[in-house]
């Protein structure tokens, strides 16, 4: 297989306000102030600022897998939202391969979204069917 136990990958997703606004208006219909307005999120929501929708964080982790393993197929992805991921922050999406099943052609991957402070507001796991080399 084109993946081995212990393989690691990462990428820097774009969680800027314009991208989050695009996600909440064009990709979904979730145009709520907690996602798109820092001031209201602070004043009305008691949050540190506008937060990235959880389903966008999950989509970012799925994209991270596809960037690492182009042509692979995610069979299952499980994400836990532990704390808010802030809009306009600079997180890193990371993954590490924790198990490879050569017979099944699948890999299990641990996933995290880590913020600038080194905290992990979003984490998860995925089972991926890996594209076989021609």
């Amino acid at each position, binding site marked *: 297989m084109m993946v081995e136990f212990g393989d690691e990958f990462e990428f820097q997703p774009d969680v800027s306000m314009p991208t989050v606004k695009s996600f909440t208006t064009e990709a979904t219909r979730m145009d709520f102030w907690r996602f798109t307005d820092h001031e209201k999120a602070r004043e009305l929501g008691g949050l540190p600022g506008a937060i990235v929708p959880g389903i966008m964080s999950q989509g970012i982790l799925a994209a991270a897998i596809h960037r690492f393993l182009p*042509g692979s197929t995610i069979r299952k992805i499980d994400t836990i939202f532990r704390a808010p991921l802030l809009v306009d922050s600079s997180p890193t999406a990371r993954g590490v391969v924790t198990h490879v099943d050569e017979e099944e052609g699948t890999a299990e991957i641990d996933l995290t979204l880590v913020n600038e402070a080194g905290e992990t507001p979003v984490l998860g796991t995925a089972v991926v069917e890996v594209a076989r080399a021609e």
Partner: protein
Amino acid sequence: MDVEELKTRFVGEEFDSTEFEVKPADALAFARCCGETDPRYSDPRHPEYQAPPTFMTRFHGRRTMPEEFPEEYFQGSFDGGKTVIAHAPIPVGATLVGTSQIADVYRKTGRSGSMTFLVHRMEYRNQEGEPISTVDWKLIRKDEA
């Protein structure tokens, strides 16, 4: 109503069925905003073009909970996470049928006290009834001490 009663009365009961269109512009924007670079999700000209595997998380049924469910029970709860099982590619432009059920209710006790978890499940099928995607949404309520 306690956890065991919620479980007995509501778990496994299908309480909503709604049709959802996988709109091409929405699927493309979802892929772009999440940073998808795999052309199967980012390029409509690709022969295997499809919506990203977590795309169905964006939909909700007409009802979030069963009619008789004590909704105040989970007021003030928070979104604990999502699990997606991809059974088949999500066809762009198709209309899928999503059915809703409460898959589980359970309590956990840890260092920070007791919490109740509710797993809300939506199962999406195509017009032929074939499974496309299962989305579990975990709602968490911190129990009173």
